[in-house]
């Protein structure tokens, strides 16, 4: 492994970095957010090496870094929504998801055939990519599940000798300012949706409004929300709290979650029996999906009967329909990730307000 300090000769850094990438090597590089790890996104061998380094990905997609929209168009289909976003926000700390043209190694795409694109606001990196003339991966440089890497030490303290040996080149820019990881924006749904972070950093708890035009879109939304919350799922479990009138698509959302988890059984409404449970295995993760319906419930003792608190644990997902019926009786631990979706009907479309706490 070679480490080059940022104050070394710029030309030399670029040359070394491009050589490393051409050789299917792994490159650790600074960005305006955290340190990233780059590999040739189109090379099977390079992605093999990257996945070996990152460790268990549990089906999380990678994303790629390019120089500009024109280069992005080689890899993805940029729709009107995405084009607008590129114009207003890039380069910058955003990852924009579009439909992949499948030029990259298949493991870089998401399971939905989409691909995240990043244009770093870091001229040196853009220049490296430009010279290399191929997209590089833009995932964070920590091994999966480890600390956010703001300095090289963060990375190496938390990886094994074996992992460390896979790194070919490090561009060390010292300690980076503690900026949040990039906000992920999905432009493949009819409303762009922020999958990670918030467009407005000061308003984490205000609801984000989405529109769904069909059951398929509601189901897709569920899958995307799951994909984005895999970390929380694997740590403490997840709760989706659904509110909204009869026949608005709450069970459709639950079906989307089940589909994401690879559950084959038909997901029926649990209104009558209060709760249905399904064991699932997705990649290496095993857990239980609990589908609850509080439609018939409105007393403390019934909520106690369901033992909801005990169901919330690592790798378990709870989807609770008619959540407002039981909200007041439920005390959740601080660490629990609760995603509330309020459904309403407006002009033949579903308006879904999402908030997270």
């Amino acid at each position: 492994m070679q480490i080059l300090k940022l104050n070394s000769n710029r030309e030399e850094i670029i040359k070394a970095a491009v050589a490393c990438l051409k050789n299917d090597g792994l490159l650790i590089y600074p960005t305006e957010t955290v340190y990233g790890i780059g590999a040739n996104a189109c090379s099977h061998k390079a992605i093999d090496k990257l996945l070996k380094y990152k460790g268990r990905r549990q089906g999380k997609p990678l994303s790629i870094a390019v120089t500009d929209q024109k280069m992005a168009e080689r890899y993805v289909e940029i729709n009107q929504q995405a084009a607008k976003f590129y114009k207003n926000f890039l380069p910058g700390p955003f990852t924009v998801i579009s439909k992949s043209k499948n030029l990259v190694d298949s493991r870089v795409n998401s399971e939905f055939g989409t691909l995240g694109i990043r244009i770093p606001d870091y001229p040196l990196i853009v220049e490296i990519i430009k010279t290399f003339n191929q997209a590089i991966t833009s995932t964070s440089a920590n091994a999966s599940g480890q600390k956010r890497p703001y300095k090289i030490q963060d990375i190496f303290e938390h990886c094994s000798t074996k992992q460390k040996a896979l790194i070919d080149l490090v561009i060390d820019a010292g300690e980076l300012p503690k900026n949040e990881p990039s906000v992920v924006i999905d432009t493949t749904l009819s409303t762009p949706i922020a999958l990670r972070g918030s467009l407005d950093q000061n308003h984490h708890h205000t609801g984000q409004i989405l529109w769904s035009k069909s059951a398929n879109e509601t189901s897709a939304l569920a899958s995307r929300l799951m994909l984005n919350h895999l970390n929380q799922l694997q740590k403490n479990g997840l709760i989706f709290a659904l509110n909204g009138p009869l026949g608005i698509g709450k069970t459709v959302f639950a079906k989307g979650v089940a589909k994401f988890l690879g559950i084959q059984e038909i997901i029926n409404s649990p209104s009558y029996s209060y709760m249905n449970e399904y064991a699932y295995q997705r990649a290496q993760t095993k857990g239980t999906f609990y589908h609850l319906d509080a439609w018939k419930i409105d007393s403390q003792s019934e909520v106690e009967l369901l033992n909801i608190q005990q169901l919330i644990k690592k790798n378990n997902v709870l989807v609770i329909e008619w959540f407002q019926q039981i909200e007041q009786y439920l005390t959740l631990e601080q660490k629990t990730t609760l995603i509330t979706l309020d459904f309403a009907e407006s002009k033949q479309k579903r308006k879904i307000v999402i908030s997270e706490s």
Partner: protein
Amino acid sequence: MSKILAIDTSCDDTSAAVTDGLVVLSNIVASQNQIHEKFGGVFPTLAKQAHQENIEPTINLAMQVAQLDWSLINAIAVTVGPGLAPALEVGITQAKKLAIQYNKKIIAVNHLEGHALSPLALNHSRKRGKQADTKVNLPSLAVVISGGHSEFILVQQLGQYQKLGQTIDDAAGECLDKVGRLLNLGYPAGPLVEKFAKKGQASKFSLPKAMTMQDNFNLSFSGLKTAARNLITDLEKQNKLDQQTTYDLAASLQEAVFGQIIYKLKRILLSPNLVAGTYPKRDFLDQIKNGQAPKTLINEIWLGGGVAANINLRRKIRQLLEKYQEQSGKKIQLKVPYSKKLCSDNAAMIGLVAGLKYSRNEFAKLDELDRKPNLTI
């Protein structure tokens, strides 16, 4: 014959029964419906607490009505699923306790199998006069329509089941209950929807009949629910939701729910190969003229579940079977449970399944007996 003490606590109702083969000696349901109604449609069910309070008195009453002593009981049967896990737990714990106390064998029963076979139950007081009814002419089609289930099950042999189709979202009874609640008919609203429907005109409102475009035997009621909600919201806005409109809506709703069931039932009868689950082709349906419909392997239809008590649904199925007989020359008999109590959740149906299992020596090991909340058939 084997005498069984059966317990069912799969959901809201605590029930115990004593059966002797297919004959029901007692069937006690400590119904919590009265508790529900008191709260006017908003209804704490207090399920577990009520089960625990009710279970022993319910069992004692079942034994008392059957006029049997524990020494005459051959085995204890209990529902292990599907249902609500903590509720199932109460019944299973009690069954284990009794099995140890009285040294009885234990039989685990699938609640759905109970509903499927419930039309075979025989009334104790009439059993001598109606021996002819005990003859079962297989294969049959079990149609379970309730608040929690909507399934079509092919029965080639007792104990051997093949699910042909099921709801992919809401159960039929649930749809009636939920839309009924929007019409302020309390809970469960299904029986009231039936009463109101008689006074209404089904043709007043046209609600969608889903799944007719899907080439399978599954059902779906969520789209219907959405359409009904929108319709009710509109009518309320226009201040038009008066008494007669509510009757008409109830009739239209019932028509849409039952219409879909009948539609799929007809497809099942016309299937060229039911065992393979083959859905009849559209052009094939068009070619059916009198006397040309294929003869199905089904000899009987068994209608079970809470909605099986609905007279309108029974009539619609009978009409379908008459028409089918004209088209194919084959007569199919419709069997329904002999009482309303046997339609909704009850332990007698669990007892009669257990009686059959007893004769096949299908007993559960005490230490392996466990709840199976998502058991299927």
